């Protein structure tokens, strides 16, 4: 399962990295004499209504989605984990305050926060990044806090403290090795969530603006040509599907290995 997931991701990332270099055109280069060309030898996945290369646009869209998703997941995982550890370690009012904050964030639907921020800066990319990070940290916080509380009360930590080990050692040798597999699973699923959120916004027209190459936007732009040029819709949908499937496979394999 891990092999399937990794090969899917490797395939898509190879397309993202080398695609534009192979086709040799930019994502926004129009060629009005070659519109709605079907997939073939010259254009592997055909061209769209403005004669732009679909392969090239997909490559840029994957770069955008995965880059943004990775960034927002990292910015959620690091503070989420740190706060979860802090809450479990300190307890008392620190923990109560953080749990209250997390519950408050949890009450908001994730996409709503992104949409509110987008209202301030239509078409910009930062609302996605900030919005996703602000929503996703709660998951890390909750999971890490629950696990760390059990671990901190366990004999292994009690014994380590009794033998004179300080908190950096306990963190490094007792807590993190136990938490890491769980965190990796969460992060993989988090990347998938972020990718879907970005393309959902693009698809319903509140996300990035044309002519940016973005998966959701590409799907909605292809609607008028669904009968003449079905490949225009199939290509971004399939890419999105494979990307999420690959991530889900990896997350599942990590979960089972735990």
């Amino acid at each position, binding site marked *: 399962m891990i092999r399937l997931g990794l090969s899917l991701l490797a395939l898509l990332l190879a397309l993202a990295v080398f695609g534009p270099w192979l086709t040799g055109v930019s994502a926004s280069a129009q060629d009005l004499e070659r519109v709605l060309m079907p997939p073939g030898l010259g254009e592997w996945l055909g061209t769209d209504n403005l004669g732009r290369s679909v392969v090239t646009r997909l490559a840029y869209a994957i770069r955008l989605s995965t880059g943004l998703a990775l960034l927002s997941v990292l910015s959620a995982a690091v503070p989420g984990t740190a706060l979860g550890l802090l809450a479990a370690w300190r307890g008392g009012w620190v923990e109560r305050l953080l749990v209250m904050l997390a519950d408050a964030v949890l009450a908001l639907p994730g996409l709503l926060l992104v949409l509110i921020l987008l209202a301030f800066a239509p078409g910009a990319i930062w609302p996605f990044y900030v919005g996703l990070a602000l929503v996703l940290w709660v998951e890390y916080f909750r999971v890490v806090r629950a696990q760390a509380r059990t671990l901190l009360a366990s*004999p*292994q930590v*009690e*014994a380590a403290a*009794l033998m004179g080990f300080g908190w950096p050692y306990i963190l490094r*040798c007792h807590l993190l090795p*136990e938490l890491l597999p769980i965190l990796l699973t969460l992060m993989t699923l988090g990347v998938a969530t972020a990718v879907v959120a970005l393309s959902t916004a693009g698809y319903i027209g509140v996300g990035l603006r044309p002519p940016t190459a973005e998966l959701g936007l590409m799907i909605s732009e292809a609607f008028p040509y669904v009968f003449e040029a079905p490949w225009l819709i199939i290509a971004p949908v399939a890419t999105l599907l494979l990307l999420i499937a690959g991530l889900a496979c990896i997350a599942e394999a990590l979960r089972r290995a735990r």
Partner: protein
Amino acid sequence: MAALAIHDLSVRWQGESLVDALSLTLEPGRALTILGESGSGKSLIAQAIMGILPAQLQAGGDIRVGGHSSRIQDGAARRALWGSKLALLPQEPWSALDPTMRVGWQLAETYHQVGQVPRGQAGGRARETLQALGLPHSHDAWPHTLSGGMGQRVVFALSTAGGAPLMLADEPTKGLDLPLRDDMVMRLQAVLHKGGSVLTITHDVSVAQALGGDVIVLLDGKVVERGRAEKVLQEPSADYTRQLLAAMPEHWPARKPPACAGAPLLRLRGVAKQYGGNQLFAGADLDIGAAERLSLWGPSGSGKSTFGDIALGIRRPDAGSVRRREDIGPFGLQKLYQNPLMSFAPRRTLRQSMQDLIRRHALPAAELQEFMQRLRLGQGLLERLPHEVSGGELQRLALARVLLLKPALIFADEPTSRLDLISQRNTLELLIDTAESSGAALLLVTHDPHIARALGGRQLRFPWRETQAAEEGVRGPIDRG
């Protein structure tokens, strides 16, 4: 006709023999006990009889339960007999109750479904049974409100509700403290008195003694000795049986109390602790002398471990004080845990864990080797992860780890309760010897009064009573030796 007959039972895994050609017969109204330590294959025998052997094992042989014959590998044939011909007694019985059903209803349901009692009469039967068990008020109780002993009695009633003449008890006393164990044995004896037959599979020699009948001693899947219980347990002919009997705590020679002098290591004054609304102890005064041996014994949940944790400073008392002698360093009080596996970092090799400790305190590295030799531990063990080492070895490694710190006192919290008899005896003897030779005091928690006696020091009984101090000479400074 025999209640149970097994002919040539064998279990193999990847060509390796786990149970080797076992045959036995059990007559109605008699008891048969299969006695063995962990790894002897006794649980596989229980699973084979019940018909729940894991599919990847190859099994062979014939079995007859009541009048029903089947091949060993045909598990479904025996599963059909559950309840009506073959009663199964689950381990840790109280946890086998359905937590979402009231006690009386569970019993009535079982009488109806398994015992074929008409639905209209099942409720009455359940009430009668509870009355007979001395639990008339528990009919509408939820399982979690029952004590361990009450739950045990209810589960016993449940597993016999189908009227099966043969009862199979797999490790019926595992994890039970003394009063619960005695109650369990009494229940099994009652089955025998009523003419039922009981097959018990256990590591606990005292259960075999109490039930009588026949005994089969098992080692590595092979029968070492078999015969009448009185004969096998009084005059064993096999070496292994002799070792097993000698390892029972009631047969250990009591040690001489160690000589101790000088100022006490720890002074506890007026210590009190509550847990879950339960006053575990209050006003407890105790002095622990240098190199002293002290046992805390009593049933589970009576506050023994909590008392030790308070003495060590891991937990705070609700009231009272714990004073250490001035020369005891911050790491001078150390602890051994009931489950050593939980006390090591699970993803670090034992060598890494040991080296971390040596580096932390700048200890001479050669000492570890010395301690490991003294505790009869091979150096190769250090390359493994904690879960790749047997329980007895890991507890000795934990002891070696603790000894590196030259503790003034070792608090051992039921350090051998999860070990087999023979390895329990070896481990405890090594613990006592090394504590003595390194001049450390030993505070041992146990639920077994025989171990407390064999330790040969003062005994503190739990639940803590104000009066015991005066009775047993616990209160006051230590002026012996």
